[in-house]
């Protein structure tokens, strides 16, 4: 069980010519689930991509550390090796590259238990996790995200998370495109991971329904690039009832 923290401190970032995040601070500890809610354009996805290091975004100030490691100083792949994972809102198609090949390369890079996993190990874990989350086994041999439905992509992201076992996961609208059953499967898998290996979660979502399954310890409301409210699960229900009007 890992213990540690992902600390975002006064993070300011954006795209060239526009500051989107205007000083975000929050700390996720291992095993905790933090939800980030907010209206469209509030900067939720920007937050996820800036922390992961997507090309095209600029950091203007502040820090993000994972157990004291300065993530913003590292390229994306080293952030991942430090223990960060991003489940993308729009997972990207990579033609001709099967999931298992990608994960074999990823696992060779980040051995969880000190030893690199072989491809057969990965296959075994992939099949277990796919079963657990209800992802059709046949989809595992498909090229990454190619010809997958929106829901299949999100299940696929969750399977990758479960096989890679990162220390902290950013979930960027993992609930969009999922039906009720899939939502429950995905939410439950992530919730279990917080117990199994102390996964810390920063879950970005529009809707309360994910948080019925993946129960947040802390809820942040993001508006205009700032955290405008922080509270417990009751905050998510309040937002669901009244909308964001009171926060913008």
């Amino acid at each position, binding site marked *: 069980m890992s213990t540690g923290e992902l600390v975002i401190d006064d993070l300011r970032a954006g795209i060239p010519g526009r500051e989107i995040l205007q000083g975000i601070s929050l700390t996720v500890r291992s095993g905790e689930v933090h939800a980030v809610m907010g209206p469209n354009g509030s900067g939720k996805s920007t937050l996820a991509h800036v922390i992961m290091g997507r090309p095209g975004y600029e950091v203007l100030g502040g820090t993000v550390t994972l157990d004291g490691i300065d993530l913003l100083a590292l390229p994306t*792949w080293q952030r991942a090796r430090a223990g960060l994972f991003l489940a993308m809102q729009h997972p990207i198609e990579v033609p001709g590259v099967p999931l298992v090949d990608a994960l074999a*390369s*990823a696992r060779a890079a980040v051995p969880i238990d000190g030893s690199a996993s072989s491809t057969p190990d990965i296959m075994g874990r992939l099949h277990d996790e796919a079963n657990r989350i209800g992802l059709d086994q046949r989809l595992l041999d498909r090229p990454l995200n190619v010809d997958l439905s929106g829901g299949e992509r999100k299940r696929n992201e969750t399977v990758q998370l479960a096989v890679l076992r990162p220390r902290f996961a950013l979930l960027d609208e993992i609930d969009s495109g999922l039906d009720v059953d899939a939502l429950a499967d995905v939410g439950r898998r992530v919730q279990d991971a917080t117990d199994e290996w102390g996964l810390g979660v920063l879950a970005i979502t529009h809707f309360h329904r994910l948080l019925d399954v993946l129960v947040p310890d802390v809820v942040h409301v993001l508006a205009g690039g700032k955290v405008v409210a922080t509270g417990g699960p009751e905050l998510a229900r309040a937002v669901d009832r009244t909308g964001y009007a009171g926060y913008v």
Partner: protein
Amino acid sequence: MPTFAPDTAASLPGDAWLQARRTAAAEAFAASALPTEKDEVWRYSRIDRLDLDRFAPVATTPVVAENQGASTSERIHALADRLGPRSCLVVTINGVLATVSGEAASSTMTIGRLTDHPESSSLLGSVLATPTDFPLLNDAFAPDPVVIDVPEGVTLEAPIVIIHAVVGLGGSAVFPRTVVRAGAESGVGIIEVVVDADEGALVEQVLGGLAPAVPCERLVVPVTELDLGEAAVVDYVSVQALGAAAWQLAHQTSRLAARAKLSSYAVALGGAYARLRTDSALMGESASSRLRAAFIGRDDQMLDFRTLQDHCAPRTTSDLLFMGAVADTAHSVYSGLIRMQKGAVRSDARQTNHNLVLAEGAQADSVPNLDIEENDVQCSHGSTVGPVDEDQRYYLESRGIEPGRAEQLIVAGFFEAIAEQVPLAGVRPLIGAALAERSGVTRD
């Protein structure tokens, strides 16, 4: 005397009609100016660097016969065995028919020497009726054209394999010629390989990981004519695996009658300058062509593709996708034309060219063109030229995969995705392996 003189052409063995035909072609070639890079269809090419006087036609295989014969033959057969199941194997050496073996050879089909066919004089040039420049040179100097004549209604289960081996003799000019006639409602698969069969040449580098031999400078001018009768179905795969110093000027041309279906797939691997012109004329109503190519340029190589999707009849379709990569200081060219002739109503043409540029010194030019004389048609064309997709790289890197490995996976995946589209499944593994080997990336 110039090396490609009419007298030389006239002296090649053959029937009187063939000798007369060769002489006329050689005279026409001699009377015409060589193409230059100023000509639109030769823009971006390296044709100005071609010095024809450095080459002379070979029509025989004397050197091979002496000391290399057995091992050359073994190499060719080893290659043939990796091309998947086949019904028949045809081998030419330096353009001269060497062997025809297999079941199909003894069926109602004609497979073998064109001049043994009763209709040989009308078959040769039946699709390529008015050749210019290098195809004209092939007309003049092809020593021994191969014919595949599939009778009406006959369907062959396994493909016919044709291997045109070039061997020995630096400075040689080689003219393989293949004429395919697929009768009405016939079905046939053809795999045609043009390969440098010298010891240690590309075929072995690709297939066996051997060190390269000193490459032999040669001029190779293959011409293939595909004549599809009504509702004929032809799957045609061509592989160019010439040595690193070879010049190739290849021409593949097809003519489709009503409801005929062609699926063509070209793989380009070798050559110093290797050009392939692919023309497909959709002459009959509802005929359809599916044209694919996969290529990888390395070192200082140039791979040059010119295509014509020629819609001459109503409701014809053509779907072209050429994909490749250039590394080191290699250069690729794709230039293609969709022509919608008057009367090609409700026809549909697609033309797509994707190029991965893997090094700063590498270059890919992509020039799509449309020529539309009919209103009631659909055309689409598009091309991409650039490095590995940034979003794809980001996705893999977000999984902890280091950038070099991410790029390897993406490049291998790019070729995996196109190798899956090879129409004849038996040859897919070899093509996949050759592309992976040539791209310098492996999954393991």
